[in-house]
């Protein structure tokens, strides 16, 4: 899997919701997309454009009605639920708008949660988790609960958590939506750093300034990719590492 350079490949992905006998909502209507390793992609679009559905499909939280989705070269579009869970845990790191930490767990325990579901031995990975906490600047808050942290700090915990399984890509859903602009900028800078270190980032937002940090900005409309903008000055900075 390590050799695959195309992290995401969508081929004619459709997602239709049948609401009644006559009403069918075409949330995605045949999307084609390729995302290379190490790239930074922002998905934008007005509400109802299929942005959320796209996120769910990309995050393996949902399966397409039709079409193929290859994640890291593996076809996940028809995986059974259990394998899909495993794929999420192994290949995707989630960052949500509302942080989505587990309230009763401490910072370090929250970071460990994905390891638990990968059947990893938590003892062996403890130092790794502590390092990640340091990386996001929370090395001194390991045993705090989420409610003892600020929003920005909570989002940093979520970022550390998204990294713990060393995923193929990080999927961020409005990561700054609940943060003030200063804190939001800090979080985005952290994401930039990750991308600079070679992580593939897919970010869903409706904020132009947030999207502006990505190399590619994909605009969606009516369940289709409307247009794609290449963000020149960023692309030069972090060209995907090509082997061969």
């Amino acid at each position: 899997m390590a050799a695959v350079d195309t992290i995401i490949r969508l081929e004619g992905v459709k997602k239709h919701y049948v609401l009644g006998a006559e009403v069918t909502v075409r949330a995605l209507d045949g999307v084609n997309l390729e995302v290379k390793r190490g790239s930074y992609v922002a998905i934008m679009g007005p509400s109802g454009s299929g942005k959320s559905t796209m996120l769910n499909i990309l995050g393996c939280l949902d399966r397409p009605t039709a079409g193929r989705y290859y994640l890291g070269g593996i076809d996940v579009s028809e995986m059974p639920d259990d394998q899909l869970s495993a794929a999420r845990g192994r290949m995707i790191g989630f960052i949500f708008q509302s942080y989505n930490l587990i309230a009763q767990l401490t910072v370090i325990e929250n970071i460990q949660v994905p390891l638990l579901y990968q059947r990893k031995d938590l003892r062996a990975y403890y130092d790794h988790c502590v390092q990640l906490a340091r990386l996001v600047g929370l090395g001194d808050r390991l045993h705090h609960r989420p409610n003892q942290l600020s929003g920005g700090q909570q989002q940093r915990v979520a970022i550390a958590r998204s990294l713990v399984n060393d995923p193929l890509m990080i999927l961020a859903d409005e990561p700054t939506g609940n943060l003030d602009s200063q804190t939001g900028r800090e979080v985005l800078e952290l994401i930039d750093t990750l991308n600079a270190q070679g992580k593939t980032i897919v970010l869903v937002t409706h904020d132009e300034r947030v999207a502006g940090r990505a190399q590619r900005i994909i605009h969606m409309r009516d369940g289709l990719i409307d247009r794609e903008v290449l963000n020149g000055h960023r692309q030069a900075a972090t060209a995907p590492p090509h082997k061969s």
Partner: protein
Amino acid sequence: MNPLAFQFLVIVRLGIKSLLLHKLRSALTMLGIIFGVCSVIAMLAIGEGASYEAQEAIKRLGSANIIIRSVKPPEDAKLSGIGRAQSIDYGLTYRDAARIQDTVPGVKRVLPVRIIRENVRFAQNSVPCQVLGTLSFYPEIVGLEIVRGRFLSDWDEINNENVCVLTVGLAQRLFPYQDPLEQSVKVDAFYYRVVGLVREQNLPEQRTQSGQMEGEPLDNNVYIPLSTSRTRFGEVLIRRSAGSFEAEKVELHQITVQMNDTATVETADPQIKTLLRRFHEKVDYETIVPLQLLRQAEQTKRIFNIVLGSIAAISLLVGGIGIMNIMLATVTERTREIGIRRALGATRRDITLQFLVETVVLAVGGGLIGVMVGVLTPLLVSHLTTMKTIITLWSVLLAFGISGAVGVIFGLYPAKAAAQLDPIEALRHE
């Protein structure tokens, strides 16, 4: 540690953590199980204790024995005590004893007993007691423990010896300072040499008659040879009570028939009854078959246990429903968390396991506390009252096992419900 065991331990620890998040709620949920388990153990302990004493008493009568007692016929009871001296002739006879010995198959020994109420005296001490005229093998059949000296011998019987054996309690009252052995005690008009001290393990005769002797210690017995009893007291026993006196002619008060083995007891019982019926005009006797009593007692106990067990099971069921109710509420409340966990890679099975573990921790935790309270309750009951209680290991294991099972059974549905949630819906849940 084994990684799998460690993994499980982590899940249990996380479960406990989640439960501690709502301490009061978890404690209240546990209460149902605590009371259920406690009531199972306490009820069974009290029931067991109640039936134990009865069963022990019956067992000591001897399961291979058939006991026949003289009973004053009711029509004669009316006549008695009305001024005029009247001798009432009833009860078992020496010939009954001989006939049973000779005709009923499977009889090992027949033990006749005469019981006379008299005062026994030594120096200034006078103690009301029962004078039992009997044979040398009485201790083996009734279960007497010979503390000192010897019991009556066949030689005493043949020679009408004036010897007696005292129960320990009686000896202590009569001889506060002296050694009772080889002393002479006076009963009625005659002196008897004390040859032994015994301790009764069981006093069926007195126990049934204790209504007349209330407040008196149960072990005031003097044993003399049957032949001596017959010659010294005669066949007609006269009892004086305020203003009237009663005379009864009773040869034997009790016959204990010992069978060769317990298997023949139930065939011999009707044969003895038929035999007695032929030679007794009135029904002036009763038969007691300890084996049948024991069976009845066991049957009663079984029914008792079933009833108690059902009550306790219902309380555990109610506790289980309480747990299920709370867990369903918890699942709704923690929908978001379920969504997060699913997004982070948890399979449906992981979610099921997590909630099942929480329920089982609740139930088993409640079970443990319930076992502690349930063990303490009977101890407290027997400490505060005279009731005997017996805590059996199986009742503890049963109660604990049921509490665990309740956790699994009632936890399964909420856990499955949690696992069936759609991760997208769950993540969107506020």
